[in-house]
């Protein structure tokens, strides 16, 4: 689908939804309402929204520990996500998962994943299921540059290529593996180069440039749907906040962060890009942000008004207790 004005506005709105959802979640940690840690996606929004714009409801998405953006872009209800961060029973995972395991199976969002590269094997597996069932569903696995060091990344790509599975591997290379710059621990600069070892296309794009990601994803999704196998997309990006809550960020300079925020903010860049094309007026821009802010407030109210779990909830959902084998 061509990137037209209407679609662009929708994508742009989703970018703001991700940005403001996370900034509100961060604020709520200081109010004590959101506990545990948060890995924010701020600065990387263009990737999730551009990729998910090509997906159907029945396509699969698997994420990382930094997956609020993937969930919102794939259509997970914001109020239930906020309730999950608040640890309420109305949360996406009924307060059992939290930020790092957020999932919404009704949208085939099979979950954030606390294990680096943990989603790559399963995401390749959902693609195998599509192949066996001869459906044209595709699977998208998001992961960071750190995941490219792990075995499951290599094994997953091998299987995906071997059986030409409908899967798109999206590496969000934000330059840091937690607190270590990628250049200190990697031997090839571009993760996309690794695709060659598995005989699949590897594409490296500017992750702050929505149009670039959109184009790369469009081709990859189409190729997967045609049954021609996987694509590895590397989207070069940057995290505006630290790795997780309380990161002292001693490994990068204030100037570096400010430069990215000032000049490489995907929302700013896309806003300008739309305005250049007369697809977005200042009033509309403001209206979009106002509407998103109202949605955020509603989600916080929803979370606050939702019940906390009760002690007996701890024993449920380990196994399917209702199930009995039948001959």
């Amino acid at each position, binding site marked *: 689908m061509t990137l037209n004005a209407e679609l662009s506005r929708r994508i742009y709105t989703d970018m703001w939804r991700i940005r403001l959802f996370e900034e509100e979640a961060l604020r709520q940690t200081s109010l004590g309402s959101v506990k545990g840690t948060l890995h924010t996606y701020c600065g990387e929004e263009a990737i999730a929204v551009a990729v998910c714009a090509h997906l159907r409801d029945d396509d*699969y998405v*698997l994420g990382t520990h930094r997956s609020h953006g993937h969930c919102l872009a794939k259509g997970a209800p914001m109020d239930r996500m906020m309730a999950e961060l608040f640890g309420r029973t109305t*949360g*996406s*995972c*009924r*307060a*059992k*998962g939290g930020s790092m*395991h957020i*999932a*919404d*199976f009704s949208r085939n969002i*099979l*979950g954030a*994943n*606390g*294990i680096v590269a*943990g989603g*790559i*094997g*399963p*995401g*390749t*597996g*959902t*693609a*195998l*299921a*599509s192949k*066996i*069932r001869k459906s044209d569903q595709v*699977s998208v696995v998001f992961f960071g540059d750190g995941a490219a060091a792990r*075995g*499951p990344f290599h*094994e*997953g790509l*091998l*299987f995906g290529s*071997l*059986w030409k599975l409908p899967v798109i591997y999206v590496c969000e290379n934000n330059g840091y593996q937690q607190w270590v710059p990628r250049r200190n621990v990697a031997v090839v600069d571009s993760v996309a180069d690794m695709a060659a070892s598995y005989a699949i296309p590897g594409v490296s794009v500017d992750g702050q440039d929505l149009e670039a990601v959109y184009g790369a994803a469009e081709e990859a999704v189409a190729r997967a749907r045609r049954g021609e196998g996987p694509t590895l997309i590397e989207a070069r990006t940057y995290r505006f906040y630290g790795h997780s809550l309380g990161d002292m960020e001693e490994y990068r300079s204030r100037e570096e962060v400010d430069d990215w925020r000032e000049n490489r903010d995907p929302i700013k860049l896309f806003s300008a890009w739309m305005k250049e094309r007369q697809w977005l007026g200042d009033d509309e821009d403001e209206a979009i942000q106002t509407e998103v802010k109202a949605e955020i407030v509603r989600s916080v109210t929803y979370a606050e008004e939702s019940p906390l779990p009760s002690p007996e909830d701890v024993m*449920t*959902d*380990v*196994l*399917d207790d209702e*199930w*009995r*084998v*039948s*001959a």
Partner: protein
Amino acid sequence: MRTIALRDALREALHEEMARDDSVFVIGEDVIAHGGPYTVTQGIVDKWPERIFETPIAEAGIVGLGVGAALAGMRPVVEIMYVDFITCAMDEVVNQAAKMRYMTGGQASVPIVIRLPCGPARLVAAQHSQIMESWFMHVPGLQVVAPSTPYDAKGLMKTAIRSPDPVAFFEYKALYVSEGEVPEEDYVIPFGKADIKREGEDATVVAIGGMVPRALEAGIALEDEGYDIEVVDPRTLAPLDMETICESVRRTGRVVVCEMDSSFAGTGAEIAAALAEQCFHDLRAPIVRVGSPHVPMPFAEELVNVTVPDAKAVANAVRKVMA
């Protein structure tokens, strides 16, 4: 009733379930060639060539793909050639398969069966002989199955495949060729139901997997001394049917718990502890455990023979609780 080997019973269960349910598929190393080293997957490629996947040697990938396919509604039956190799895929088993339902607040169902050929056979030493059931028992969200007879193997495999939650299915290599009566028709054995393999009144012997035939052999030998033992086979270790075990121990007042694996922090330790909690006042002698010493499996036969407990070890333990 006809008599078949345990591996044939497993194969039959697989074929029946694949015919019954299109979502069942097989994935693993060498599963097409020869039907795997144990011939359990033989014949599947002829009937369902699109539902059997012979893989690169990449256990994390194999199990990871299985988990994903299961999340998408398929029912993968994964073969890991030796249980020792599952350590290469422990993240996929523990962090992905086992925890997924809980982490997602009950949204996820991971109906995966991981077949784990295990135990000593053929002198293949430390990296091809382990058992490791207790590793899996310790992970909430996993079901652990260890059949000892062809009948149980078929019924439990069919239940495992139909289960909506992950199953670690332990197949004792030494039992693959052991024979027993197996009905040709469809039947299932529910998880969490122990089976009394021999009734007796003097002492209870809880035996797991490969130790069951050894306990039965000990039972015959002990008859000469006038000891009539009851052999209880839990069949599934998670869930674990302590009710049947306790009921037997309350009757006999004496108990030996046998496993082939190292008894240190093992399956028997859990059973013995639960018995001490639930049946202490019924016990007329301290609980005795039988298991391997805490060493990796050695190579030389002379060393293996003193490592793996046999029927004599079981009989000696019974003599101890009877004394």
